[in-house]
């Protein structure tokens, strides 16, 4: 009993560490890819680690009071919490204890903590940035909520681990016609979730000086950047779990540790691919205005999602 708890705690902390590591790596990879697209050399892929280390090694750190510090705490803590509730490469850490709705709301915890800090800084840019971030959230939640509800009804479970289990043996959701379209819709939403162009409206460095981040620096900025990097992993993993079977290709009971290894590699490749799609779109697009983004998601994306809903509806109609 006690051994189990200790091992699970160890596994979880290891997974979280892995998640952060992958997040920082992704940051470097993204910058490298964008640089190559711009026909530049670009930074080394391990640039992310360097930046984070540098930020945490700053001599002085300027805070705006205890509410401002909540941002650093809640963003890192909350994103780690969210990561724990995702099934990663078939390893369901806590995902048996909660379900997709819980995850959708857990993602809001770091965002809200971040928002508190940004607001507490009292900088108008931060306020405007938060406004844009929240409206982005409202915008992309509608299509993705529709798709997720459609999947829940189709698989008749709300647990993400359940959905992943149903997709085992490579019966991936993306193979099902409605969810192929759904994957495209969700990918558009993912673009907004990852705050990549054309949806990097909340932190538009040239308009509002990186919006919510304007007052963050040193360790505060380090925490926020860690949250953003981990966020990419969490969101891509969510996408992969929903549509690509969570990267589970081999049955663990059958192959043992080898299966874990393969699954992890597949999972890594999949989230990397999903992430790179976002990055490449990001590299070649300009930025929307916020109301344009809202209209894009609520008009076109949501319409397609509605179509999927009707499709599923005709399927389950009794």
């Amino acid at each position, binding site marked *: 009993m006690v051994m189990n708890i200790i091992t699970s705690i160890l596994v979880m902390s290891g997974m979280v560490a892995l998640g952060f590591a992958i997040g920082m790596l992704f940051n470097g990879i993204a*910058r490298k890819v964008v*640089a190559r697209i*711009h*026909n*530049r*050399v*670009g*930074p*080394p892929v391990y*640039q992310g680690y*360097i*930046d984070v*280390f*540098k930020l945490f*090694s*700053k*001599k*002085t*750190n*300027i805070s705006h009071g205890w509410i401002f510090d909540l941002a650093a705490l809640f963003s890192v803590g909350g994103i780690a919490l969210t990561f724990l509730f995702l099934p990663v490469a078939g390893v369901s850490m806590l995902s048996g204890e909660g379900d997709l709705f819980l995850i959708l709301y857990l993602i809001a915890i770091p965002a809200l903590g971040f928002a508190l800090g940004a607001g507490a800084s009292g900088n108008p840019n931060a306020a405007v940035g938060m406004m844009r971030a929240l409206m982005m959230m409202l915008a992309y939640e509608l299509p993705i909520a529709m798709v997720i509800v459609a999947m829940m009804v189709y698989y008749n479970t709300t647990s993400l681990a359940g959905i992943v289990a149903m997709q085992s043996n490579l019966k991936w959701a993306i193979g099902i016609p409605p969810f192929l379209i759904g994957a495209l819709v969700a990918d558009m939403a993912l673009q907004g979730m990852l705050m990549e162009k054309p949806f990097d409206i909340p932190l538009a*460095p*040239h308009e509002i*000086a*990186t919006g919510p*981040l*304007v*007052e*963050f*620096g*040193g360790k505060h*900025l380090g925490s926020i950047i860690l949250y953003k990097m981990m966020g990419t992993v969490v969101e891509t993993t969510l996408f992969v779990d929903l549509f690509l079977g969570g990267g589970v290709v081999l049955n663990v009971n059958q192959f043992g540790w080898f299966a874990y290894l393969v699954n992890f590699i597949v999972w890594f490749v999949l989230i990397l691919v999903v992430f790179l799609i976002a990055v490449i779109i990001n590299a070649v697009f300009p930025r929307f205005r916020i109301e344009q983004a809202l209209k894009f998601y609520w008009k076109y994306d949501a319409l397609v999602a509605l179509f999927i809903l009707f499709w599923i509806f005709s399927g389950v109609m009794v």
Partner: protein
Amino acid sequence: MRQEDWSKLARIMSKRSLWMVHFCTGCGAMEMPPVLTSRYDMERFGMISMATPRQADVLLVTGYLAVKTLKRLVQVYEQMRDPKYVVGFGSCTINGGMYWDSYNTIKDLSKYMPVDIYIAGCMPRPEAIIDAFLKLMDMIDKGEATGWKKYHKYYKQYKRNQKMAFSYRLDEVKDIEEGDGK
């Protein structure tokens, strides 16, 4: 001893990710785009330009500074977190350059804030800029770029110079000098 290693590691890391706030005053900014973009890609050294001083390590002052501008520059500089470095860009920041006899420009930036490295020329080529940044990097590596410590140490003097620059009338200047004498 361990503290030594730690700070050395920190120096190595921070030299490889210098985030600069680009205080663009004069014509010198013309030379920055090629440095940032694909011709002489600055990001390969981990340098990117940041939007706010809170996030930045390097303050790049391109071109001449009027008194009013200096006020803002000081504000920006003091909002940066330590360790922070200043790069004076072009001869305007060294000796006023072509504005050497103007009544309301700053002649020597280092009177008002510690400049770690100057880039001479009116205006310097991108190669020169890259060269300067590389020099700054190994200065940081050796631990010689200690401008921010100097600013803390001689804070009063710097403030006095700034006040004198901001003050318009001679009697104000006199007051400041006497006040400083006492």
